[in-house]
């Protein structure tokens, strides 16, 4: 029934499109006579052909685009004026003399160009005609930031694209990003965020790919990146709700002499940690430890707390007789290398254009052992072929292979122990490097960072994409083109995990012996193998035509089918011969032999879609676009298999109105466009076959008669009505350009409402029913915000400069939220989420620090235990409800969690003669973090502390009794050791920051010199990533994640022990032959 509906609708739409397509046949006949076809060719100032340039009659707006050789054929009669325009080049008008073939050379201009062609969903549009909230990053703007991850390179460049780099661990690509906050994670029943934000849909050369694939691209293979933020993404239907990032790779151009351009570039970077915690030394540690012992109130009561470390013991370290260990310095080095090489070839002739890219990246870690390291090869070969007249083909083949090596120790544990091991311990027993010392939890960071000892993990990814494109200009109907595309993608993850047992030692001074203890056993080797195959087929009809010299129509119908299948297995053996292969395991150790399969990696999914779009504009003034997508996926129940996602966009280009041109001269108001869009988008990522009833196997099981029996467990009551969440997006914007691009900008306002967010309806279902429910489409939310872009471009004498700033603000509010009936009004106030802002951080409001005992004695609010154990320097909080007690009821909303609400970027670029400089400032505000564990308080787990905790309240005389009111105190940032750690608004820090994300200074060697040795260009540069950060935060980088919400995926911050972010200094060169 539903299928019929779909076909009904599709047929209806196709019929309309067919009518439109058929019209030009008759239209052409009526024009007749006069004009005759003439040919032209368009190149840039370097003689390279410009494909896709627009060629049109000045008065009729009737136009075509150049082919891959920059050639075109257009009907014109002598005296006609044709206008040629192309992205980044000054428009050229040509008066047709008749009968000739023309050759037009276009000169590049900088700044905004309304004729820029922008990649949008399943096509391109002229910038002037774009109606959606679409932002573009061009290749040259992308590569100015030097980083191993393309995602990080986008940071600060796109308004509304929120990017937080969590770590610079080589090979981890741990960066969270979303568009306008749309991918925000879904709250669970307690209002806690669960899981990670969902990244936007990523489309690389028309094919949906993962965010890991985007991060791992070679930046020099990218031509441009388009970010679709509103209903313009609706053409991607059920996967589009979080916005779409479209990446287009470079194509070859034709050279006048048929020659290839070869560019080799190299970038050598040195990384250093942006912020790495610094542990205290032994003397400081003992001072804090003694203070903590005294602060311990229980000991005070008995009055007998002896000092754990006597002055004489401290003196041993202070005098240098005994050495203290800085565990962080013991495992890290100040600088680590990172190198990128890249070879580009592009060129071609009339028949074939070619782009070839080969990239290599190697990144070391800041561990002394370099045991974490990463390398990657990228290649791409894009070939465009003119098969015969009107038939064009393209073959895009690309791939990457990368390897991450890491020691068999979780990275967060390495940092945890490097921060908290006591400095009086030594890395080696008796300082003999043959005998690594036994440390608490068997965690000796010097060993943990050594793959030779703990075993090495090798994570390999291989990815291959092969794409065939065919375009055919259907004869007889001008502007009608058929396209076919088939893409085959294959990826492999091949992991080797070696766990080696090893000895740690203690040294017995008495007997002068080393006591070995074998840990980390048994030694095992595990292999994991994941494969994934994606195929995608697209068949489409594209139409572009102008009617009556004023009505421009573009149309598209497309059929798409995708198939995704994934499989995996893993096996483990004992690791006995020292070879990381299963065969080398000891067959006798069957106890450690396991074979398994990750059910989440078993994928079998078919999607089918019909896509359509119709663009219309009247003389470039009144613009409208309608798009739809009909999506079907095997993921959904047959009842809810097909979904229809329409969108409409309209715009009015006031600057093209004659009345406007008469009011304000076009060279003042170059462009003014107002636009609005509305569409329905879907998000199916949370869905997982919950319409199927039955049992899951294998599930948790039990050991029966000594052997393990896997269990089956019920899938839960199926919900056949469960479907994708729906997202309705409205966007209104205005674009303007003044003085031919001297000043330009745009402003956008958006509202995005989601309904049917899948949620387990357990909040109101009594537990006694025992019913295991499936998700239902229950909750809703609303996101709104603004974006602003302002650009300024100018040339003063020989200095050309650009300033471009962008700002994005986004805030999310819950709509309906299924929750258990509140037990009280207070419970309702505190815990209800319906119609509340999301990501709210509750806590105490900080009052101050007690500065004296007289203040404490006079303080009539009970901060706990009747203020019996409060000492000067302790924090106090505001008694919000004035009940004289500080308890949970005094908690109020104090901040917002997770990704920043306001993100901004500022790009400054200038060039003068052969010099160029660019600076990217990037920052965020309305952004808060809280420290966890070692950064939150000293002596965690009764171990060591970080250096900042020395700046604390303490007694002037370390031997003084801190409970004696007459004791003299020295003030500091933190309370005395052992006092309660910061809480509430004292602990939650304002992480507003702005940093110099990128600074690059380049110099192009004079061409006069180079010409003689056959080199076209050499540019050398120095560059820095994350050069400096302006922030009020201390002791941690603002982007480094601290504490996560309760129940939120702990891995987001890993206790605050993620591998820190880095700063890099680079030098590089690019040579073109």
């Amino acid at each position, binding site marked *: 029934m539903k299928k019929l509906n779909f076909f009904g609708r599709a047929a209806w739409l196709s019929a309309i499109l067919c009518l439109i397509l058929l019209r030009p046949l008759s239209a052409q006949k009526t024009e007749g006579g006069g004009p005759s076809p003439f040919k032209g060719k368009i190149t840039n100032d370097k003689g390279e052909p410009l494909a896709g340039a627009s060629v049109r009659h000045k008065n009729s707006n009737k136009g075509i685009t150049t082919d891959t050789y920059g050639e075109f054929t257009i009907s014109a009669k002598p005296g006609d004026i044709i206008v040629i325009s192309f992205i980044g080049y000054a428009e050229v008008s040509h008066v047709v003399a008749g009968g000739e073939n023309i050759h037009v050379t276009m000169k590049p201009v900088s700044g905004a160009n309304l004729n820029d062609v922008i990649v949008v969903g399943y096509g391109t549009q002229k910038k002037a005609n774009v109606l959606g909230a679409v932002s573009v990053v061009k290749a040259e703007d992308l590569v100015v930031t030097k980083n191993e991850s393309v995602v990080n390179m986008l940071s600060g460049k796109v308004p509304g694209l929120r990017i937080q780099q969590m770590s610079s661990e080589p090979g981890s690509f741990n960066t969270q990003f979303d568009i306008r906050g749309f991918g925000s994670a879904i709250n669970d029943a307690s209002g806690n965020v669960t899981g990670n934000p969902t990244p936007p849909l990523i489309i690389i050369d028309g094919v949906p790919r993962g965010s890991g694939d985007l991060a791992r691209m070679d930046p020099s293979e990218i031509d441009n990146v388009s970010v679709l933020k509103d209903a313009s993404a609706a053409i991607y239907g059920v996967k589009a709700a979080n916005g779409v990032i479209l990446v287009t790779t470079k194509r070859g151009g034709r050279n006048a002499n048929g020659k290839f351009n070869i560019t080799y570039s190299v970038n050598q970077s040195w990384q250093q940690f942006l912020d790495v915690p610094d542990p205290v030394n032994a003397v400081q540690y003992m001072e804090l430890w003694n203070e903590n012992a005294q602060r311990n109130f229980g000991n005070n009561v008995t009055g*007998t707390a*002896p000092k*754990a470390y006597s002055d*004489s013991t401290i003196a041993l370290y202070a005098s240098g007789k005994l050495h203290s260990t800085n565990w962080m310095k013991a495992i890290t080095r100040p600088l680590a290398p990172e190198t990128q090489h890249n070879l580009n070839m592009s060129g071609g002739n009339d028949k074939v254009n070619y782009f070839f890219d080969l990239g290599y990246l190697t990144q070391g870690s800041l561990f002394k052992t370099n045991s974490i390291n990463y390398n990657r090869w990228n290649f791409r070969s894009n070939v465009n072929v003119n098969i015969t007249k*009107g*038939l064009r083909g393209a073959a895009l083949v690309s791939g990457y292979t990368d390897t991450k090596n890491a020691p068999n120790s979780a990275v967060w544990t390495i940092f945890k122990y490097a921060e908290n091991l006591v400095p009086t311990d030594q890395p080696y027993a008796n300082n003999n490097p043959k005998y690594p010392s036994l440390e608490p939890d*068997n965690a000796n960071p010097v060993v943990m960072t050594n793959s030779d000892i703990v075993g090495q993990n090798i994570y390999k990814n291989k990815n291959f994409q092969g794409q065939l494109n*065919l375009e*055919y200009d259907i004869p007889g109907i001008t502007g009608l083109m058929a396209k*076919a595309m*088939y893409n085959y993608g294959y990826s492999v993850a091949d992991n080797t995990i070696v766990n080696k047992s090893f000895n740690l030692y203690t040294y017995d001074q*008495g007997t002068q012996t080393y006591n070995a*203890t*074998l840990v980390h*056993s*048994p030694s095992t080797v595990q292999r994991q193998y994941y494969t994934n195959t994606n*195929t995608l*087929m697209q*068949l489409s009809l594209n139409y572009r035509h102008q009617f009556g010299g004023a009505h421009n129509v573009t149309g598209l119908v497309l059929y798409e089918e995708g198939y995704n299948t994934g499989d995996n297995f893993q096996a483990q053996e004992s690791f006995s011969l020292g070879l990381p292969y299963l065969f080398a395991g000891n067959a006798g150790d069957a106890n*450690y*032999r*396991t074979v*398994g399969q990750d059910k*989440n990696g*078993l994928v*079998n*999914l*078919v999607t089918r879609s019909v896509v359509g779009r119709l663009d219309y504009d009247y003389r470039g003034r009144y613009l409208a676009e309608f798009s739809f997508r009909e999506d*079907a*996926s*095997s993921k959904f129940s047959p009842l809810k298999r097909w979904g229809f996602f329409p969108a409409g966009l309209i715009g009015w280009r006031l600057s093209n109105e004659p009345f406007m041109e008469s009011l304000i001269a076009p060279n003042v108001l170059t462009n003014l466009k107002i636009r609005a869009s509305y569409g329905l988008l879907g998000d199916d990522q949370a869905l997982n076959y919950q319409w199927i*009833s*039955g*049992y899951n*196997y*294998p*599930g*948790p*099981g*039990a*050991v*029966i*008669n*000594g052997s*393990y*029996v*896997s*269990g*089956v*467990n019920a899938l839960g009551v199926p919900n056949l009505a469960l479907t994708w969440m729906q997202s309705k997006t409205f966007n209104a914007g205005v674009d303007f350009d003044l003085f031919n691009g001297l000043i330009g900008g745009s402003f956008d306002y958006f509202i995005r409402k989601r309904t049917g967010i899948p949620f387990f309806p357990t909040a109101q279902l*009594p*537990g*006694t*029913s*025992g*019913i*295991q*429910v499936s998700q239902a489409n229950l909750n809703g939310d609303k996101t709104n915000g603004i974006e602003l872009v302002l650009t300024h471009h100018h040339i003063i004498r020989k200095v050309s400069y650009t300033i471009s700033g962008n700002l994005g603000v986004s805030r999310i509010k819950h709509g309906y939220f299924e929750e258990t009936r509140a*037990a009280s009004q207070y419970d309702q106030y505190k815990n209800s989420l319906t119609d509340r802002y999301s990501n709210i951080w509750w806590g105490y409001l900080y009052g101050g620090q007690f500065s004296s005992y007289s203040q404490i004695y006079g303080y009539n609010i009970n901060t706990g235990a009747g203020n019996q154990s409060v000492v000067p320097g302790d924090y106090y909080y505001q008694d919000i409800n004035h009940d004289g007690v500080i308890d949970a009821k005094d908690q109020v909303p104090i901040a917002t969690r997770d990704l920043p609400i306001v993100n901004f970027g500022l790009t400054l670029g200038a060039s003068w003669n052969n010099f160029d400089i660019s600076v990217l400032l990037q920052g965020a505000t309305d952004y808060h973090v809280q420290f966890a564990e070692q950064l939150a308080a000293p002596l965690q787990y*009764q171990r060591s502390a970080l250096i900042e905790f020395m700046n604390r309240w303490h007694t002037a005389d370390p031997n003084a009794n801190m409970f004696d009111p007459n004791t003299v105190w020295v003030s500091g940032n933190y309370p005395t050791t052992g006092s309660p750690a910061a809480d509430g608004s004292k602990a939650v820090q304002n992480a507003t920051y702005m940093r110099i994300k990128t600074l690059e200074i380049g110099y192009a060697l004079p061409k006069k010199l180079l010409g003689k040795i056959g080199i076209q260009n050499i540019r050398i540069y120095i560059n820095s990533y994350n050069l400096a950060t302006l922030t009020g935060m201390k002791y941690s980088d603002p982007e480094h994640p601290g504490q996560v919400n309760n129940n939120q995926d702990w891995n987001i911050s890993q206790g605050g022990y993620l591998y820190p972010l880095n700063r890099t200094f680079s030098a590089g060169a690019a040579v073109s032959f």
Partner: protein
Amino acid sequence: MQKINYIAVILVVCLLGSCHKLDLAPVGVISDENVFSNANAVKAYMADIYANLPIEDFVYEPNQGFMAGNGGRWQCFYHTDAIDGEMVGPFGGTGDAAQGFGFWPYDKIRVINVLISKLPSYASNFTADQVNEWLGEAYFCRAYTYFALVKRYGGVPIVRTVIDPNASAASLLVPRDKEEDVYNFIASDFDSAYALMKDPGNSVPQGTASKYAAPAYKSRAMLYAGTIARYGSANYVDGDARAKGFVGIPAADANTFFQAAYDAAKLVEGHFTLYTGGYPDKQQNYVDLFLKPNNEDIFLRQYTQSDPNTGGPTPDNGGPHSWDATMTCRIMTADGLSRAYPSEDFVERFGALPIVNPDGTPTRFSNRADLMQGLEPRLLATVYFPGAVLRGIPFDVQRGIYKTFTGSAAQELQNNLTSPNDVQNGANINLWLGDINAVVNGLDVIGRAGVSTNGDDLTRTGFYVRKYVDYNKAASSCGLYQSTQSYIDMRYAEVLLNRAEAAMELGGAALADALSDINQIRDRAGAPPATAGMTIDTVRNERCKELAFEHQYWWDIRRWRTADQVLNNRNMYAMLPYYITSENKYIFLKQLEPFKRTYNFQKNWYYEPLPGGELGKNSHLFPNNPGY
């Protein structure tokens, strides 16, 4: 024409790679029919039930629940008996765990109810015996689960059927049943299990229920009901829930339950025996009882190193635990740390230790190990004393060093052992206390096995737990997640103790039976026999000694309603060894455990509060238990 060929070829290629049907089923889903039509599938279904059975095993934590997955499987020291003072350890006191963890396993009960209601209609696929065996196991597991509920909350809603998900919202609001009714329901389910299952003869499957497991557990449940009826009628917190019978059982019904407990226990007789396979060494025998499969075991949870789910997204309880790593200290193991230590209070259940001479001076020992001479084998098999040896390494437990020691133990304790622990300062210090690395005149101030107040990782009572510690394993195999010895949830000794206690409570003719039950236990333990004048306290104390560290004492003092007296501002004691250099001797001082944790039990804790969220969803669960 050539053009058309190109297009045709490419289109064919495209289409060949496409054309997939939209009707794809997810991998790994088994239909309802298949689950009950195939013996292996029913077995898997049963495995799921057993995986979720609320067994208080090695990884159960009284404040966190039944810990599946590696996150909780290493913290074995968060043991029930560490909140009741049998051990002192990681909890700050009794209150840390006394109010439970919101246990509400009706989803698991539903899984059992589904089997009970559906399996009969698929009976033709199997033999009648087989079907009855599975149904019997299901009734056993249902009773087991309800017992886990009733001992926490008192009366809870009894759900016998599979509730229809489409039922009206009002009908989903199931009310509470009375505590007594829940116990009767449990009894009838155990009876059903007993009736349905076949006598297994000598082959008892391990890790699943069997015919005689049902009466064994019934004896436990009925004993609980009987004592609650008898003692809960004297010592209670009043409230609506009590008035309505949701908590509390009329005293008049006590004997009915005791009789049921007695009868059930008697039913088990002859099918299991106390383990004596290690005789004549009664200490070794008692140690091996917990490590070797034997005919005392009635119901076990087993573990395997190769459980594929332990670290996965849906972890279960079949993976290895960490008992060996977290009950003794680091020097005998490969990882992990101990945090819970038997208290001197527990050890004294076996009688005061001979550490003080009649004149009040501490007894001098040449070796720490000498103290163990003459102690009850069962005690030495339950607790590692200072000087005991594990894996070739002695527990060199020591609190400090005296240069000289004069006077009585009591005096020294009064002095509060005030000497500073600084080894560098002054020559006049008589007592050194220190950390594990401190050395004085070439002597360790404390042994590598403790005692330490610097952290939680070494004994603070002088003792370590020995029960279940596998002495056969190499130290390197005693890391976290490397222990696979079975947890014995029910053994015949408990059945005898249940029987003895029920008999004592019934009195009269049954008393002789109680004495013989106790003496069977005592004989195996290597303890002198009890005599005819024994009291209920003798039986209870025997239970505490025999079932130490088996998650029993906590529930026992609750059902006896003695917890509020036993744990009334209570500090636990340690027995700490010191070395006297001038004499080259050891002494032991009985003193407060150095952390001085205080144990208190509030009377309302005899029942846990109903889970707050459930009260919000179902108003028929009110009234909540008294005092909440």
